[in-house]
């Protein structure tokens, strides 16, 4: 066990998998000489060389498609899209190809690709560089969606993603790279898909979240504790598969749920999670599920406006108060 950052945890996962399996390679813009726009792949080029750490031109559609083709050809590509905003250029390859190929060809093809990409706002990068797009990938059967919040999960889920035979969209958060936490150096420790993590137990209220919002949720739970409200906090870790059991177990206990996500409120992943909570635990709910999310607006550059658009611990506390 060592105290390392989310960034280092991802880097470690990549190294271990590159060491374990010759078929694993990393491809993307600036992943090599530059070490990654967020330095996640730092140092890999020196160890693994250009063959396995491949800088690409700025061609998101074809980088992604080539990753899919390489996966069909027997490799285990880890494609980095510099930020999720650019994945919109690759949606055809992700949704029309990666997600479809296994089924559409009758089960005989497989596409074991991992598409890693940071997302999220908070750095005054404006409307075209601050999006959280997990909802698009959640609404696409054939894809898996992993979205770690902690360094340990970043490592363990990335390793699982690389070993999975299905295409995985692996969503990091730009604000989390510096976050530190305990991470095992056991090379065989995987974090399984579809197992949520109850990071804080409580009996009065369930806060369901993932990625950076987990931290806001924990902070809110601490504030609520001062108000005498004992909140349970669930980190989903993967959105597909979704661990509804863990959510429902918690909601049955608390009778109240808040879903916290950074995507736009309308049509976001939280709408689906809320819908599933209602469907599975309607009679256990004392109040409608609250959704705390980003306002439905392109992200403004101005820092104060940006802060107000993003969901915060304060918003979660307010939602809890609304639920009485």
């Amino acid at each position: 066990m060592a105290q390392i950052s989310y960034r280092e945890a991802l880097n470690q996962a990549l190294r271990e998998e590159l060491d374990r399996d010759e078929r694993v390679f990393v491809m993307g813009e600036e992943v090599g000489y530059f070490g990654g726009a967020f330095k996640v792949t730092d140092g890999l080029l020196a160890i693994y060389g250009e063959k396995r750490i491949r800088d690409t031109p700025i061609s998101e559609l074809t980088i992604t498609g080539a990753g899919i083709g390489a996966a069909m050809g027997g490799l285990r590509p880890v494609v980095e899209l510099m930020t999720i905003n650019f994945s919109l250029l690759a949606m055809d390859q992700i949704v029309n190809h990666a997600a479809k190929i296994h089924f559409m060809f009758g089960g005989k093809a497989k596409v074991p690709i991992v598409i890693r990409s940071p997302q999220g706002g908070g750095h005054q990068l404006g409307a075209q560089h601050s999006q959280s797009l997990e909802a698009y990938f959640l609404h696409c059967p054939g894809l898996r969606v992993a979205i770690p919040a902690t360094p340990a999960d970043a490592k363990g889920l990335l390793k699982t993603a690389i070993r999975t035979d299905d295409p995985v969209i692996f969503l990091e958060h730009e604000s989390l790279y510096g976050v530190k936490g305990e991470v095992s150096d056991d090379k065989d420790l995987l974090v399984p898909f579809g197992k949520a993590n109850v990071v804080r137990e409580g009996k009065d209220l369930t806060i369901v979240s993932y990625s950076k919002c987990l931290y806001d949720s924990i902070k809110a739970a601490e504030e609520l504790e001062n108000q005498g409200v004992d909140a349970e906090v669930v980190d989903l870790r993967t959105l597909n598969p979704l661990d509804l059991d863990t959510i429902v177990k918690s909601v049955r206990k608390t009778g109240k749920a808040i879903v916290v996500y950074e995507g736009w409120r309308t049509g976001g992943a939280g709408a689906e999670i809320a819908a599933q909570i209602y469907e599975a635990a309607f009679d256990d709910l004392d109040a409608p599920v609250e959704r705390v999310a980003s306002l439905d607006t392109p992200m403004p550059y101005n820092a104060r406006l940006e802060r107000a658009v993003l969901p915060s611990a304060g918003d979660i506390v307010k939602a809890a108060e609304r639920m009485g």
Partner: protein
Amino acid sequence: MALERDKHTAQHALLTLHEAQLLDLYRRMALIRHFEEKAAEMYTRGKITGFCHLYAGEEAVAVGAIYALYDKDYVVSTYREHGHCLAKGADPRVVMAELFGKSTGISHGHGGSMHLFDQDLRFMGGYAIVGGGLPLAAGLAFAIQYNEGPEVVCCFFGDGALPQGAFHESLNIAALWKLPIVFICENNFYGMGTLVQNAVSQEELYRFAEPYKIPGVRVDGMDVLDVYGATMEAVARAREGDGPSLIEAVTYRFRGHSMSDPGEYRSKREERIWQERDPIKTMRRRLLTEKRATDAKLDEIEKEVEAVVDDAVKFADESPEPSLDELGKGVYVE
């Protein structure tokens, strides 16, 4: 339209190929033609549904190009891929069964006419997004290079795909990394009802190879030997590590864009001119003129492939549909 390439490649191929090989080329083209004609009939009879894009008229391209490949080489194609799939060695039974949507189909009835696939044959799929196959093909070529394998990838697409961004991105990456791939643009002059000169600012499509510093050639896509010869050169180049090539095969589809298109945008005259250049008739004429085959032998082949296709229809017809129990399954490997 004048073909700028002279026919020495075709002539050379004719001289160097054995009789058995020449007959094999003929047989493959004839098989595809019969298959497509039968598919049209089955479509009309409601046995095949959805979109069905036939390859009749273009047989020389798939057959000539794929004849230049080894079994282990990969092929990537489009929704108009019956021909490529058969040329790569697929059993007409499982291809027809797929068109019928049967569980014995090459894609288990999940794919249909546009989505044939066979990993073992290294037929890596028909894709229905125009231009969608090019990045995948580049990725397959990357995997070959990564594994230091001897294989090459042959990627087919239409003139309609040329204006897609994926064309440019894929050629650039393939050229930059010297990937073992042959891009074959089947220029049949139309993308649905749009003439190539209304879609591309340059009618000589092979010239798009130039800025990437890769070879670009135009071949007579109605002449199986010309296609074969040019592909042999491009494949050799790719296999030696010298990177990709772009081949423009000028050809013509004898039918509408799909079974539901009467092709009203084309003149009868134009169609007639191209029908006279029918790749199968041309090959027959040449084999006879050059005394490399007899009428009887070629007739025998025609009969043979007719029987094969009839058998394929029977097989498809008698096969079961996929079970409703499978519903919602098969989406993930794990």
